[in-house]
């Protein structure tokens, strides 16, 4: 094994990179410059509003966003589960 590889390998890699890179640039030109979350919301057709959480109005959805106590609660439960599993399985 060589660390860099043969000339042929590098050429194939560069060719793949070029194809993927061009496709990415085309996609970026169409999508336009924006943040990750914004890009997702635009793709799904949801208006970008920091106060608007998708699905909040639906009774079957739920939201933990912006609720530190809920986050802490979930994190505590996960921590307890991890400790219990660690003790049970003696990792």
């Amino acid at each position, binding site marked *: 094994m060589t660390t*860099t590889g043969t000339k042929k390998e590098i050429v194939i*890699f560069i060719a793949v990179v070029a194809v993927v890179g061009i496709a990415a640039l085309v996609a970026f030109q169409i999508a336009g410059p924006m943040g990750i979350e914004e890009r997702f919301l635009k793709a799904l*057709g949801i208006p970008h509003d920091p106060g608007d959480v998708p699905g909040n109005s639906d009774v079957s959805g739920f939201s933990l966003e912006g609720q530190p106590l809920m986050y802490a609660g979930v994190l505590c439960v996960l921590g307890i589960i991890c400790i219990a599993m660690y003790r049970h399985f003696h990792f």
Partner: protein
Amino acid sequence: MAHIHLEDGSFTLFWVALWWVIALVVIAAALIWVRSVKKTDNRKITLAAFCTAAAFAIFQVSIPLFGGVHLNLTPLIGILAGPALGSLIVLIINILSAAIGHGGWGLVGANLLVNVTEVLVAYVTWNVLKRLFPGAFARAGITTLTGLFCGNLAMIAIILVSGVQGVTQTSSQVLAGLTLIAGVNMGVAVIEAFITGMIIAAIIKTRPDLLEGERP
């Protein structure tokens, strides 16, 4: 760098629960696999810990490219730690990321499946390409591109199957939008391919014992 950047409440409770259940089955399989190994190599555990720390940190760094993106390092995790330990690594990363508001809690299950896809595909590709690409750099680079491409496919499939609440667009419109995201993501994958290639090449040059079956 496929990761579903949606907030809690985007998926209905049914789909949140379903993706979580599937993710837990994957994690259970990974735990059984790890436990089946009589004596886990301490170097592998240390490597997994480093991968977790590095990937979590890089997950949070927004690169000012294509409007702001982040790297994943999931293919690197797949190559270095394998699919079993890799699944546990991405679980920790996703939970900690959700804890600081990077992706919703309810989406951890779905995001875990996306990242496990990347880890698994990278692991398989890395081993399959061994004969075709003896050089570490090109092999790791192509492995990374393949892993991240499949991760993007998994992301699109999960969102299309689940549907997002409050979305009025048709499935084909959503697919078109998500395809653009995947396209932009693959631009970042190119950068990640070079980084992973350089890291793997450096490891094989200096510490080949960290990679099973590899020699400088």
